[in-house]
């Protein structure tokens, strides 16, 4: 689906999907992000409900980006990391987020596919999708939407992942632009911002 750059104001958005082993992997990527150059980041992480804002607190300790659980209609602002709240889908609208209690998508809520597909719909070629460790194939369909829209697909090298299945699924589908270790993923995101 082609999307006009004007729709997102030419701004980039990074969307991250992680499952089993994701807390540490997401933390490692966020640790190296530069709030002055990284685009805003939205994260769908499969998890048990750790309690209100527990994941945000855990990640905030590791990064200079501002980490928050996304509220419905929250504006997408630079320098911030938005987490899908537990048991909601996190969806991207033009310039803000929306939440949803639609049924779980292949057993997952939040669904990585849902986040990626909505981001691809609105941000088109300005979306950067990052798929990290996990033991299922959530994210592969979302990656396909991102690629179809002209976005960039960064996939964690499965040999560095706690669980390789999720990144391996996207790679097997031929959807990865680059297969990288976690520090290289962070570096690639910082480079994007510097180029804008």
């Amino acid at each position: 689906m082609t999307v006009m750059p004007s729709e997102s104001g030419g701004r980039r958005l990074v969307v991250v999907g992680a499952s089993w082993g994701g807390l540490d992997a997401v933390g490692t990527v966020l640790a190296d992000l530069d709030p002055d150059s990284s685009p805003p980041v939205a994260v769908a992480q499969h998890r048990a409900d750790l309690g209100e804002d527990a994941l945000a607190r855990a990640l905030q300790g590791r990064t200079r980006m501002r980490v928050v659980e996304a509220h419905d209609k929250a504006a997408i602002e630079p320098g911030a990391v938005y987490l899908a709240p537990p048991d909601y889908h996190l969806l991207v609208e033009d310039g803000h987020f929306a939440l949803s209690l639609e049924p779980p998508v292949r057993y997952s809520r939040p669904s990585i596919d849902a986040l990626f597909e909505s981001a691809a719909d609105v941000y088109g070629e300005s979306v950067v999708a990052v798929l990290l460790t996990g033991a299922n194939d959530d994210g592969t369909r979302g990656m396909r939407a991102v690629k179809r829209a002209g976005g960039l697909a960064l996939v964690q090298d499965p040999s560095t992942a706690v669980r390789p299945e999720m990144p391996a699924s996207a790679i097997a589908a031929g959807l990865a632009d680059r297969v990288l270790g976690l520090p290289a993923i962070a570096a690639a995101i910082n480079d994007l911002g510097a180029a804008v």
Partner: protein
Amino acid sequence: MTRGELEKLELRLLLDAVHQHYGYDFRDYARSSLRRRIWRRVAEEGLQTISGLQERVLHDPEAMERLLLDMSISVTSMFRDPSFFAALREKVVPMLRTYPFVRIWNAGCATGEETYSLAILLREEGMGDRVRIYATDMNDTVLRRAKEGVFSLERMQDYTRDYIRGGGQAAFSDYYKAFGDRVRFDPTLAETMVFARHNLVTDVRFNEFHLIICRNVMIYFDQALQDRVHGLLYDSLVRFGTLALGHKESIRFTTHADAYVELDPQEKIFRRAA
């Protein structure tokens, strides 16, 4: 015209057609979830395009019924967000007690999980015989299911846990009887409930309430529609009446931010300022 622009055109035409032919107005729904639901219906009908769906729903009311169900269903649970129900007991029930009779509006009740949770809580707080819960939804099918009070047995373990976390005072299993893989809730709970069809987008105020619970309903609306519905909710509250939204909903982004004071910011419970 690009594929994306074409899809937008087809979507707009579908929503206009549904509005003009059936009266349901989804034109100001948030685009991302709307688009997902529409495409899911396109796929499940075995169709290829949104235009194809438009033709089908215009000529086949049963297809429209299925689309409506897609648009109505939020998959939720009893005592979802137990801390909210604990806050209701501690901060809202004491205010409700000051009225001889209490009217509550559970707006967008879907299949009734929240309505039954509420009825159980109010009974335990001794309010069962002087409260009426108006549970409304735009869809008759889900209302019928809500009225039955029948839920899946396999979820009862989770519900029991959340009932206890939400301050539940009895044995949760006393409230229902299992039959097969389902349970039926105590029918006397439903005696406090009135189920009625009401569409937040197109219908107007129908009563005045002491408490309105409208959690995770407006997340499907765009900002302008949220503002409009907030107007309806505000007008439907008594002075100093209470409004409860979902945990991740914010009143700050709406035009009604100044009309309320926060009773519990974490639980998104507000009191009408005047």
